[in-house]
């Protein structure tokens, strides 16, 4: 089979080579445009000062669940956080109401679900729905960090979301607060781990390492907030402790410490202001400080 390529064969190879080079040459332009646009959008996100607070209500609650809380926060904080509400329908469609006020870098975003039923299977579904809403939020608003608040099952949805869906490297969650979240459902005995708690523990190494987590429990008596056993809230330590940067447990008692009233509880509003909200930019204080240093 001794066959040297004749002139025409060799020519054909050279034509193929030329076509290959031409092909590469034609791709330079589109590549350039893509990388420029990509880097611009990444820079935009990286430089963005926006840091929303994203809240998930518990089961049987709608996207309006936190209205009172936000009013209280705004009153106490003397800032007007915009309130944006998203609802994810059963067919994966996401609707959005409310607008972002100009120059508001810390809007409150509430994500509710059409199917807001209780149960582990529903929590899994809701976590997926939340991931859809989250994706929509990230493409609409250019933020590179956010704060998470989940009331009751909302905290469980967040936990499932962080363990299974949240894999963005360009966005980080700074602080997570779960309020009255029953990590072991209504089971007060920690020796009896529910399937959900076992799964949370199994995948806990996927939790965001740099987040600071607060788990707030309410109690009417020594062991329950009327619906959720304090022991069940406490079980969150098996999931978060040692996995995230800080894990703090807080117990609130007294007025409005009943499970459903927790989001309106004055203590909890204070806790949210203190631990979750970003500190106010203290421009005026700096000015005064400057003058004092000057005068010294």
């Amino acid at each position, binding site marked *: *089979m*001794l*066959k*040297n*390529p004749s002139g025409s*064969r*060799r020519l*054909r*190879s*050279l034509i*193929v*080579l030329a076509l*290959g080079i031409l*092909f*590469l040459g034609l*791709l*330079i332009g*589109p*590549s*350039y*445009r*893509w*990388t*420029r646009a*990509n*880097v611009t959008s*990444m*820079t935009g996100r*990286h*430089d963005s000062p926006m840091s929303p607070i994203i809240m998930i209500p518990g089961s049987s609650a709608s996207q309006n669940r936190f209205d009172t809380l936000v009013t209280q926060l705004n009153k106490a904080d003397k800032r007007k956080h915009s309130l944006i509400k998203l609802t994810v329908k059963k067919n994966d469609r996401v609707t959005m109401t409310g607008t972002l006020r100009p120059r508001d870098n810390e809007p409150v975003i509430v994500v509710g679900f059409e199917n807001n039923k209780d149960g582990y299977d529903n929590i899994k579904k809701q976590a997926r729905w939340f991931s859809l809403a989250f994706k929509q939020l990230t493409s609409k608003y250019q933020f590179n960090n956010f704060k998470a608040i989940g009331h009751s099952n909302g905290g469980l949805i967040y936990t499932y979301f962080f363990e299974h869906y949240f894999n963005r*490297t360009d966005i980080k969650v700074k602080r997570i607060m779960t309020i009255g979240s029953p990590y072991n459902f209504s089971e007060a005995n920690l020796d009896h781990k529910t399937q959900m708690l076992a799964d949370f523990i199994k995948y806990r190494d996927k939790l965001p390492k740099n987040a600071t987590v607060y788990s707030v429990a309410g109690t009417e008596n020594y062991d329950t907030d009327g619906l959720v056993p304090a022991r069940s809230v406490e079980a969150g330590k098996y999931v978060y402790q040692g996995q995230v940067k800080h894990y703090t447990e807080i117990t609130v008692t007294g007025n409005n410490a009943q499970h459903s009233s927790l989001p309106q509880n004055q203590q909890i509003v204070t806790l949210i202001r203190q631990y979750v909200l970003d500190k106010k930019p203290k421009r005026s204080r700096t000015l005064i400080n400057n003058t004092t240093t000057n005068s010294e």
Partner: protein
Amino acid sequence: MGISEQRVIQRMVPTLLRLRKTNFYRVIQRTLMLTFPFILIGTFSQIIQSTVLTKQGFFASVFHLSKWVPYYKYLHYPFDNLTNLTLNSVAVIAAYGAAKYLAKLHNRDEQLAGLTGAVALLIMAYQYTNQAQLGIFNALMLGTNGLTGALITGGVTGLCFKWFGKPGDEPQAPHTTQILQRTFGSLLPMLIVFLLAVVASLGMHWLMVASYSEETWEAFQKFATTSHSVWLTFGIAILTLFLEIFGLFGPYQQLTSNTPAMNTNLNYALAHHSAYNVPYPFTADTLYHAFGTFGGTGMLLALVIAIFISSNNHNYHVVARWGLLPALFNSNGPILTGLPVLYNPIYLIPFILAPVVNMGIAAMAIAFHWMPPVVYPVPIGTPGPLIAFIGTNGNVVALLLGVVCLIISTAIYLPFMHLAEAIVNAAQVEVARKGGNDHAKES
């Protein structure tokens, strides 16, 4: 240069020709040839899957395919399937081929030997699970990275047939009794091979459980991909290239995204609006993946070009033409098995040298601030010379350097390609001299 190169080639041809004629080498070559068409089809399917039908793929990103192509989400399934059952299970074919050709050399039942080799490999790749369900196969052992293991499996199978089987010519007029006799003659070696395979499989599982080898390997790979010292990067690149020409899995083979060094670099670049002066300029991503893998591991795009411009061998041209498109998107399977480059001592030097020289040039260019290091995301399957261009946010020097690297690599590959060609020619001349009979047998 030309004359001295010719002289060196002349001196080396006889030695290498002798190597080529050994049974060992002939079996390897025939086996690789057998896998070639499967790899070729699998590679085409794979580049369509990874560049067009993956969201992070080159064409998908650059032309925003996921936004306007209907049913984009579902289009990749058939290609996944095709890739998995061709490219990613090619070792089964290699085990079949190696056992078959070795058995044929020793006049044993080649068909049974081949099938036994293939099944033995599957036995070893089978993963035992705690669940009652069927176990799954170890993907690493069945894909292109399993080629070496497959050749060994096939080789051992062939040897077992040689030692324990009965020789017998294929019956000319096959009567049932003769076929039956022949089959029973192969029963003993088959049993021995399967037993060996089961023992090997259990042994490997025990070893993995006992020594945590997977975790150790993962830890090493993590260490390798996160290293950011220049020397370590070069050292591990050389190790990777060396392992891969022998069909094994090197620590740099996988393009790991999101290594800490990469994230730090990216964040720095985004914060300072410039990619110069990033903390870790010399990593696997800025040097090896950006400048050392045009056409896949070993800069095989350069070999393709070398063949196009100066080969006289018809077969080389055919393989190179088929291999160009995959090589443009950094898939080197067809060239590795078609020429072949795998297990070929002639190509060992350029296979390692070309990428390392390119990495050196790139490191120098970065050190002297001629261009920023590659820090921005690059889509999957980006053509080699464009990787640095995209990864530096469209730096022209990076693009030019990519082209220069390609030219230098082609120059490095040229003399070795001539040597390989001279050996092929010498072998052909020898065969032609021996006369028509042998020639017919050979092909």
